[in-house]
């Protein structure tokens, strides 16, 4: 969901910069979309900054309940361990 919004925001930002660079818009319109562009670029930056590196694996506990667990590549035996826990 956030990614869709991010892409839309980037696309809109791109369109705004293009439109402003064309210079066809009246000044008040330009200022309006400029402010929108600033808002979008801040939001996009925030999305990028907030993104978090995480690797999870879906495991099934004894009761057959599925849940996500942190996963590490260093954990060589993770396959069996996770599935059994």
């Amino acid at each position, binding site marked *: 969901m*956030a*990614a*869709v919004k*991010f*892409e839309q925001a*980037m696309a809109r*930002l*791109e369109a*705004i*910069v293009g439109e*402003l*660079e064309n*210079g066809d818009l009246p*000044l008040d319109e*330009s*200022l309006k979309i*400029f402010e929108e*562009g*600033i808002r979008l*670029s801040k939001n*996009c*930056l925030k*999305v*990028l900054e907030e*993104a*978090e*590196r*995480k*690797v*999870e*694996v*879906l495991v099934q506990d004894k009761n057959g309940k*599925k849940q*996500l667990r942190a*996963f590490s*590549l260093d954990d060589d035996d*993770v*396959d069996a361990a*996770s*599935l059994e826990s």
Partner: protein
Amino acid sequence: MSNLRAPASGHLYCTLKDESSQIRAVLFRTTGTRLRFALEDGLHVVARGRVTVYEPRGEYQIILDYVEPKGRGALQVAFEQLRTRLAEEGLFDEERKRPLPELPRTVGLVTSLSGAVIRDMLTVLHRRCPTLHIIIVPVQVQGEGSAEQIAAAIQLLSESGWVEVMIVGRGGGSLEDLWSFNEEVVVRAIAASRVPVVSAVGHETDVTLADFAADLRAPTPSAAAEAVAPVLAQIVSRLAELSARLQQVIGRRMEEERQRLRLSTHRIAAVRVRVQEEMQRVDATVFEMTAAVRLVLQAGQSRLVRAEQGLMSGSPDSRVRHGLAVVPQLVARLHHGVRGGMLSRVQRIESCLAHLHALSPLATLRRGYSVLQRIPTGLVVRAVDEVRVGEDLQARLVDGRLLCAVKAVIRDASV
């Protein structure tokens, strides 16, 4: 294989024949479900079974317990049959393919936890996008029940809403090893997924039905990871570039507008001066026009007055009155004229006489002048050249005449 019939019982009936012979064949349901491919009329098969007699008709028949397509492997036939069927259903249509998200924050992996594949994919994903959130659903990728596991994992990821895109795949292997990715359940699960699916099965040369159904077919698991994960650094720099351009363009625009405003202000000032000038000119013109109109008016008025006067004086009434006034004047002038005329005539006679008297040679002679005349003509001599020496002339004085002889002619040099 010909004359194939499949009644509701699930058993299959057909006739096996070659150029010279034929025999009825039965494939019971339990055996039939174990076949990887579907039987078809016209299929060349190698079959094994028991020969029995179907007593009601008194015919030999063969009860099949193994059937294999002749020439091609059973798996290959099954592959082609399923591909045709699912393609006819539209599962592999190009229009179904969805674009991958540009910047996914979460990626699902449906694969085995053992082996190098998972390691390669994680490495590539995080190298390109260090902030990626990855959710792995571990599955068996080959063997009994693996297709069902794979399909369930795809469905789970699709429905969980955890991920924006998923990679379904495994490393290289034999056709048998990769077979789960040709199974209908897997293909349908991929086609039904709510998020885009990237397939990455085996090596580049391995093609599975999962590949046909996927939104993107990657030649290898590493390539799938590359296709899914954007290079974060590029996105960050693109965002930075867009922000910079945004600031730049608005700055430039503001400077342009300021310039335009300055220019407009100058032009307005110039216009104001011109307006003032024009106002002056208008005023002057109005003055001139007023004066001119006044002149015309005055001229018209005086012409009117004159015309009125003319009209008045020309009226018969005034002319009669004028005429009546003139009569006594004329009478008076007549009297005066007669009287005056007489008087002036007497005066004129007197003055003529006086004039005459003044011009009379007698008066001149009285003043001491004399007149020299020729004899006998009496012509007056006016110049010395008219006479010669010795000639006789007479000189008239006031009281008589002298007879003279010319002794010399002396010309006056000054005349």
